[in-house]
């Protein structure tokens, strides 16, 4: 039998025998960033389309999740840095080639934007809220007047945030599993799905719940389509990408990926949502939690499996 044995004298911590430099912080942030992007996207979309009163939760309540998610996500990103005190270096330069630079600047825009959006709608949550200072009231009145412009900026920047969470991975050609541009739209879709799930959960209005259940179903369909295409692309590609796909098609990550992400995170909630739309009584929390869980697991599994896939030489 022909055999090839490779012995390497390198044993650098976190690199060998298998790369494991990114732990829970990165996938958690990618999930929270995607969730925030999803929530903000719908809020902006329905503001632009003048449907604020039809989809009150999506526009005025659900966005409150975004700044919380983003701040926790940013904290996770900060914890991931090894040279923490130099983090400000991110903001002394703009590097168009680097997805991480794009991400840092997008977050710099989206985080305050999401806080501003919440400030505009704070009376929805706390009817007796008073800003006390006139200057704050004046500033908010200005943005209230130009809300459409604000919504457009938020729509575009949240889409960039949602796509960027996938591009961050797909820009690394050294990890064949990540090196597919489908990750951008897939992570965006996953974020939108999580965002609509949160809206379904928070909404008390039947028509709005129904609308977002339909939206979520559609997005889950798109996700399944993208996943199938991802594997088709891998299997028709080079040996390293075939091996990367095999991590999910019989390899170490097969069970977690298909069970947690595809079945529990997409197919089961999709079936429950269909049943709900057909007037079966199903506690809404079940599909919502499953969608959120699936979205989180997708990030974790892609992050970990990607680090296990590599070029062999």
């Amino acid at each position: 039998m022909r055999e090839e044995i490779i012995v390497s004298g390198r044993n650098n911590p976190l690199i060998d025998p298998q790369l494991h430099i990114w732990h829970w912080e990165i996938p958690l942030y990618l999930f929270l960033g995607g969730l925030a992007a999803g929530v903000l996207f719908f809020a902006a979309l329905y503001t632009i389309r003048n449907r604020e009163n039809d989809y009150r939760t999506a526009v005025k309540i659900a966005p409150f999740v975004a700044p919380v998610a983003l701040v926790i996500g940013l904290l996770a990103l900060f914890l991931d840095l090894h040279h923490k005190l130099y983090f400000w270096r991110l903001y002394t330069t703009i590097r168009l080639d680097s997805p991480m630079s794009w991400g840092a600047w997008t977050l710099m825009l989206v985080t305050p934007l999401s806080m501003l959006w919440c400030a505009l709608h704070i009376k929805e949550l706390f009817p007796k809220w008073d800003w006390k200072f006139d200057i704050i009231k004046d500033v908010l009145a200005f943005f209230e007047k130009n809300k459409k412009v604000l919504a457009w900026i938020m729509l575009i920047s949240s889409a960039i945030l949602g796509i960027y969470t996938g591009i961050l991975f797909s820009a690394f050609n050294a990890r064949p599993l990540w090196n597919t541009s489908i990750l951008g739209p897939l992570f965006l879709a996953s974020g939108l799905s999580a965002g609509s799930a949160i809206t379904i959960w928070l909404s008390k209005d039947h028509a709005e719940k129904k609308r977002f259940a339909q939206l979520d179903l559609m997005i889950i369909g798109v996700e399944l389509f993208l996943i199938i295409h991802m594997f088709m692309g891998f299997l028709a590609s080079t040996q390293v990408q075939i091996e990367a796909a095999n991590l999910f098609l019989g390899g170490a990550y097969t069970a977690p990926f298909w069970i947690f992400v595809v079945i529990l995170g997409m197919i089961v909630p999709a079936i429950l949502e269909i049943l709900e739309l057909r007037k079966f009584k199903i506690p809404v929390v079940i599909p919502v939690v499953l969608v959120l869980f699936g979205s989180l697991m997708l990030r974790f599994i892609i992050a970990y499996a990607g680090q296990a896939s590599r070029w062999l030489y």
Partner: protein
Amino acid sequence: MRYAMAIDTKKCVGCSDCVVACQTENDVPIGYCRDWVVEVMDGTYPQLEMEIRSERCNHCKNSPCVRCCPTGASHYNEGGIVLVEKDKCIGCSACITSCPYDARFVHPEGYVDKCTFCLHRVKKGMKPACVSVCPTKCMYFGDLDDPRSEVSMILKKRKWKTLIPEAGTKPQLYFLI
């Protein structure tokens, strides 16, 4: 100017002297290495062939690590040598995941560290520590733009390969085969 290194896999015996020299010269923390030895055994017993390679950062012309660095800490220095400026490095590890050769690591002090082709020695007209210490003289270092440099001459004479050229990184470590 384009610095490059050629390593003769037919002469290398895998003694790891280059590894120790590098660790000593560059004060590499214990448990880490900037260069390392790989042995590949290939064939059907008893017809076996062994290739021994002293590997390190490939100082690629199209470096994914330089491209993905969000702060510009990873950069091309003199002669195309890829370096990390530690005061700009935030330790985000993007460059580590981007390197198909896994040539980088996180220094215990937090910044990302890697082979520098011993630029500090090269500037003084010396060879990199690994090259100068090799007991079988299997490593050649020099300027590829100079047709009469040691490395240009040997690459003209001998057959060579680079590692994972299909990754598109244009590596500048040449292995003589």
